């Protein structure tokens, strides 16, 4: 990529005979909010630690702004990290923590305290200078860790699940703040998380990882709307995944599945052939229920329902397919259905995705 700011080229990392990172190549643009998303143990943190200089890759090369930093020690790199547990120095107060990285700049006392104040203001911690490390909440520690890293004006800020330890409300608040902060300072953020909602909310682009490999990298909307594989589709959001076989290919691809019978699908980005085993993927919000039989409606039984406030989830069981179920999320369906009730399932074939197994 021509405008690559961080270039990760064929990086692998093994611990003993466990491969944590398996031949990953990535380009991250300047000023981008880039997320590494995956379940725990997928290698995302290892990749971040390689970027920060805390692990050295077994194979491969890393460049930042055209400079090879593969073997540069952590303390010389133009990167700074916000650690998962914040790593606030317990023997120092807030001011000393934030000023920790300024020693080599040999600032006067006034210059230093000015810089610290500005950094604390940026994370909305004005007046906390003299607070001790153990006198702060998780959210405050997180802000101190951010200020301490940003005061160094790094080219890249690495964030290792920084919101993971916060409660839900605070986490959502910090997500918005973090995004605003990133746009304000214009520093490239590389953000590691296992929370797909967080990755989709915050990022310009997301790389979905599993077992040391990158499954898909794309903007959040693309990842959500066009997952490239069954694995990604399963990991991002709620998705009904149905096994099927391609029957014929014309203007539309006709796929037969146990749950829905024959479905005509518009999507043929995967170049399938008749007889291929495929997965039909459809989001719960793209299915709907009706009380009356309509054209193309399938008779189903409600297996369970769950009220979520802005929407209601139904688990339904199409007739004659044993125990296989589909999930539906419906906002305006007022026909309060209970488990065991009958209903009709409606869908639009253009909402279906076709994924190769």
């Amino acid at each position: 990529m021509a405008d690559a700011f961080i270039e990760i080229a064929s990086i692998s990392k093994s611990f003993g005979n466990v491969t944590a990172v398996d031949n990953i190549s990535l380009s991250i643009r300047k000023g981008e909010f880039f997320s590494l998303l995956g379940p725990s143990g997928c290698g995302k943190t290892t990749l971040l630690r390689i970027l920060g200089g805390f692990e050295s890759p077994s194979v491969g090369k890393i460049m930042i702004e055209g400079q090879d930093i593969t073997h540069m020690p952590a303390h010389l790199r133009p990167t700074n990290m916000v650690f998962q547990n914040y790593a606030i120095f317990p023997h120092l107060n807030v001011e000393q923590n934030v000023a920790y990285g300024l020693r080599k700049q040999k600032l006067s006392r006034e210059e230093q305290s000015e810089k610290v104040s500005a950094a604390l203001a940026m994370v909305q911690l004005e007046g906390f200078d003299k607070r001790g490390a153990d006198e702060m909440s998780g959210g405050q520690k997180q802000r101190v860790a951010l200020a301490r890293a940003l005061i160094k004006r790094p080219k890249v800020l690495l964030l290792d699940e920084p919101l993971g330890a916060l409660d839900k409300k605070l986490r959502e608040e910090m997500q918005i703040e973090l995004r605003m902060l990133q746009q304000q300072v214009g520093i490239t953020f590389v953000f590691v998380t296992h929370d797909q909602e967080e990755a989709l909310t915050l990022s310009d682009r997301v790389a979905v990882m599993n077992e040391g490999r990158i499954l898909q990298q794309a903007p959040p909307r693309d990842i959500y709307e066009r997952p490239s594989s069954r694995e990604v589709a399963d990991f991002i959001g709620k998705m009904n995944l149905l096994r099927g076989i391609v029957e014929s290919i014309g203007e539309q691809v006709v796929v037969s599945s146990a749950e829905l019978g024959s479905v005509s699908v518009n999507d043929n980005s995967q170049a399938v052939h008749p007889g291929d085993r495929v997965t039909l993927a459809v989001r719960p919000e793209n299915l709907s229920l009706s009380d009356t039989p309509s054209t193309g409606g399938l008779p189903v039984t409600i297996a369970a329902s769950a009220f979520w406030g802005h929407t209601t989830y139904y688990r339904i069981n199409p007739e004659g397919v044993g125990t296989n179920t589909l999930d539906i999320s419906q906002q305006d369906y007022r026909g309060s259905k209970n488990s065991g009730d009958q209903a009709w399932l409606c869908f639009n074939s253009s909402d279906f995705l076709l994924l190769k197994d």
Partner: protein
Amino acid sequence: MNRNMKLAARILGTYAVIYVAYLYLPVLFLPLFSFNDSIYISFPLRGWTLKWYQIMLANEALHRALMNSLKVGITTALISTVLGILGARAVTRYRLPGQKPVVGVIMLPLVVPEIILAMALLILILRLGGSLGLVSIAAGHILVCVPFAMVVLMSRFEGFDRSLEEASHDLGENAWWTFWRVTFPNVLPGIVASLLLTFTISFDEFIMAFFLGSTNPTLPVFMWNQLRFPKLLPGVLALGACILIASVFIVLLAEWFRRRNNSDAQTGDMIIG
């Protein structure tokens, strides 16, 4: 509370009192008899005197022995604590090949009878043509004290988060500065504890000091020599009383330092940074 539990509580309470009395009463006899105007340790006390303290203060040989013990104790404390810091850091921060057996070997002096170590060292030193004296005693004490220093410091190193050192590297400090700005202030209570512990072990150690010493004895060996002459015994009691007060003072000092360090730990970086 029913009757059985009351009875149990009373028995346990009595036991606790007897236990504490057994532990400390004999120790309290030391200062008591050091003021007794008689060379015989028996009741009733004959009358109060400070003459044993005067005799003790006038005893040149005792002064030499005390100085010897202080020299050996301070040397032992410093060297075994420095070795302990290096060892504990290595063991807790890195995965080294053969780590477990190596740590096992370092810890071995904790379980090997001291008299075996003392004899082995004595034979070794004499075979190699070395001379006995304070240096050989200190060498023996260091051997015994390093495991204690390691145990104290390892728990301190394990107790503090490794990512703190990584954060320091991340913020631009190399290994040297990271040690002084992050590691040292965080393990300082452990270092102080190790210094005090190893000094105390060395200060009252007898077997090594006896086997590896020359005619220039440390305090425990000196006291043991004095005990053979009943006439000198009250002087030893006076000395014992002084050591008792000094050790209480050191324990209080250590506790004060520990508390101060817990509540107001921020000052260290102001000095260094």
